[in-house]
């Protein structure tokens, strides 16, 4: 009996270990918990460490300052957390805007051939130019700052998702029930919201999550190049570009830890996106 139970237990354990959906779920939840901790800690962290303290300037990493301190004696850990927090919210804003644009365009393209041609042309146009260049142009034209960065990131990151959604829409449109619906005299708006949009939702959520890493990295990149956020904002891009001036005097920790933290955050989003895709995308999810 006991042997039997043990066997059953073992079986279920083996099964559990190999269940990709469960695995994906656990990883997703872990990633979400990590990200939320980052955001919440970043929002409520004690900002006293940001005060100028010449007694503690240029300190390498130690137990009191895990990430070290900068040339004004500000704690780099707190600066990094604040920076990640800002990056997160810029990512949320920019990714949301991108998704809204992508959905609108993909539904628009389903209306008729002309609009579809226009949307396809726009996609090709934006994808033909490297992201970072369009981003710099838009951000610069809008005068930089938070507004420039958010609008710039939003306006450059929609094409990939739009292309994906458009293909999905095309496929759904050729389904019989759409034809039936049309024959029954339903408007394109009604069909769009009732038949097409629900099918797009999984793609949308995964697309939204996977936009994050791009948005955050691009925000940091153009801020680093000086076209983005202004230098008094606690952004990672600012921290990194400031750190550049001190690298040659050997203060490696100014760039290393914030850069590494940014990478981790981006990695978490990527993991989350990929695992969510396994869970909710009907096409990919069942393949496993």
């Amino acid at each position, binding site marked *: 009996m006991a042997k039997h139970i043990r066997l059953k237990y073992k079986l279920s354990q083996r099964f559990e270990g190999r269940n990709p959906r469960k695995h994906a779920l656990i990883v997703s939840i872990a990633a979400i918990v990590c990200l939320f901790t980052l955001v919440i800690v970043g929002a409520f962290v004690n900002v006293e460490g940001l005060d*100028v303290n*010449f007694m503690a300037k240029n300190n390498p990493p130690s137990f009191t300052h895990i990430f070290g301190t900068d040339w*004004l004696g500000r704690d780099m850990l707190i600066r990094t957390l604040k920076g990640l927090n800002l990056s997160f919210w810029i990512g949320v804003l920019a990714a949301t805007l991108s998704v809204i644009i992508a959905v609108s365009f993909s539904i628009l393209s389903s209306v008729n051939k002309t609009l579809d041609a226009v949307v396809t042309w726009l996609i090709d146009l934006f994808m033909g130019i490297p992201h970072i260049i369009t981003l710099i142009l838009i951000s610069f034209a809008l005068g930089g700052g938070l507004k420039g960065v958010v609008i710039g990131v939003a306006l450059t990151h929609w094409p990939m998702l739009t292309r994906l959604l458009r293909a999905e829409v095309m496929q759904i449109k050729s389904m019989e029930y759409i034809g039936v619906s049309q024959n029954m005299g339903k408007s394109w708006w009604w069909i769009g919201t009732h038949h097409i949009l629900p099918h797009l939702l999984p793609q949308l959520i995964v697309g939204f999550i996977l936009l994050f890493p791009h948005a955050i990295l691009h925000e940091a990149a153009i801020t680093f190049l000086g076209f983005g956020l*202004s*230098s008094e904002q606690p952004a990672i891009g600012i921290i990194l570009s400031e750190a550049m*001036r001190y690298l*040659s005097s050997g203060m490696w920790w100014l760039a290393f830890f914030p850069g590494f933290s940014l990478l981790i955050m981006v990695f978490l989003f990527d993991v989350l996106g990929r695992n969510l895709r396994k869970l909710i995308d009907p096409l990919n999810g069942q393949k496993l």
Partner: protein
Amino acid sequence: MKIHFKNILIAFTIGLLSTSCAQDKKTHKSKSDELVLAIGGEPDNGFDPTTGWGQYGSPLFQSTLLKYDKDLKIDKDLATNYSLSDNGLEWEIEIRDSIKFSDGKPLTANDVIFTFRTAKESNSVVDLTNLKKIEKINNHKIKFYLKKRNSTFVYYLATLGIVPRHAYNSDYNENPIGSGPYQMVEWNKGQQLIVKRNPYYYGDKSYFKKLSFLFLSEDAAIAAAKSGDVDVVSVSSTFANNKVDGMKLVNIESVDNRGVVLPYVKNEGENIEGAPIGNDVTSDIAIRKAMNIAVDRKKLVEGVLNGYGTPAYTIADHLPWWNPDTHFKDGRLNEAKSILNEAGWIENKNGIREKNGLKAKFDLYYPSNDQTRQSLSIAFADMMQALGIEIKTKGKSWNVLDQALHANAIMFGLGSYTPLELYNAFSTNTQGQGLKNINYYANPTVDAYFKKALEASSQEEAMEYWKKAQWDGKTGFTYKGDAPIVWLVNIDHLYFVANKLNIGKQKIHPHGHGWPITDQIETWHWED
């Protein structure tokens, strides 16, 4: 983007150069009659003295009628004789004969007249509106007629490089010809400037036949210094603790000051360009005075400048026209607090002072590409927090600053060899003109002293009034008077200089970290 790419390119080129000629360079270094300098400061407008080249430091390609000696007194250069008439309106100047420009053509009174006329018409930083006419007496004698007495006119004679009439055209600023110690060989914009010895120079022959000025970012410049490719590098205090083999750190005192300029008037609308004027908080003298004595300048020098600087209390510390009575003790936080309390600025529950519902807070702008000003701004704002004054720092480009600087505090820098700077910065007549008197300071007593100083018949008399304008016992434009600016530090100009290179005794440097060091470059030489 452009700049970054450029720097990478230059660093790469230097890398190539250093690998190809590293060996003979290292061995010949101290005997070479060529010098490579990376001191930055590439002028946007080129090398035309009539539009401002040479106003800070020496013009290198051109020479001036008069010059400053080591104690910043006026001395003769091109001129052999000069005199001012008793009414103070006529300057008579005799110049050396048989002087030639670097192209071999002679320099005569015609060229001097041409230079001053061109400068007057250029409407640039060279402000010669007071010059009525110039008369040629003979080929080597010129007479200047002024509209009003002006004791500062002599400083134009000492800073304006003479340009050749026969060779002056629209691209003169890129191909300067002059009678200075060096002549242009090549200028690759954004990369380097190469000059060679002017064979016709009338002064002592320079030791170095050829000078190359590299325009590098600080990082690239130090990398070049470490690989032994550069003989002189300008560095900021951040990099001063780097060790570079074969080079010594030279620390030159300056009047290159930094301070927080505070809007002097209440918010009173906009100027014709739509830039707002005035600030209700900083127009209160209690706020300005309290900040002036609360700030700990020594701490800023130690903390931000790593000790490479001096505390600044006025616009012109230790210059001949500086008034020593303006000195005061700072770092007195408690006294500052009581000044604010007496004036009715009371701390609210958030620790910010308020007076009649007005919060003691304002924005402090600094140019975002200037790391020293950024650090000073952040540190200053932090110090003022203890006082109950909330300052938000904002790093912006100069374009944005131009719009913001009449209504917000600005981290500003001045420092010049002429007392005219005092007039420019504090006279009612210059309110809101470009970067002069940006905070709309106005004091009739100060204006009266300025008038007397400008009309003084001798430099000694002028000096006295320049000093009185700063503080006459009752009022003035320094802390004890109206305190329109919180001066913070004078920045030492730091250079890494090759060990055996003798750059002579340097004058106290003006604003501008770079060209001023070349002032006496014709006397530089290798030591054995």
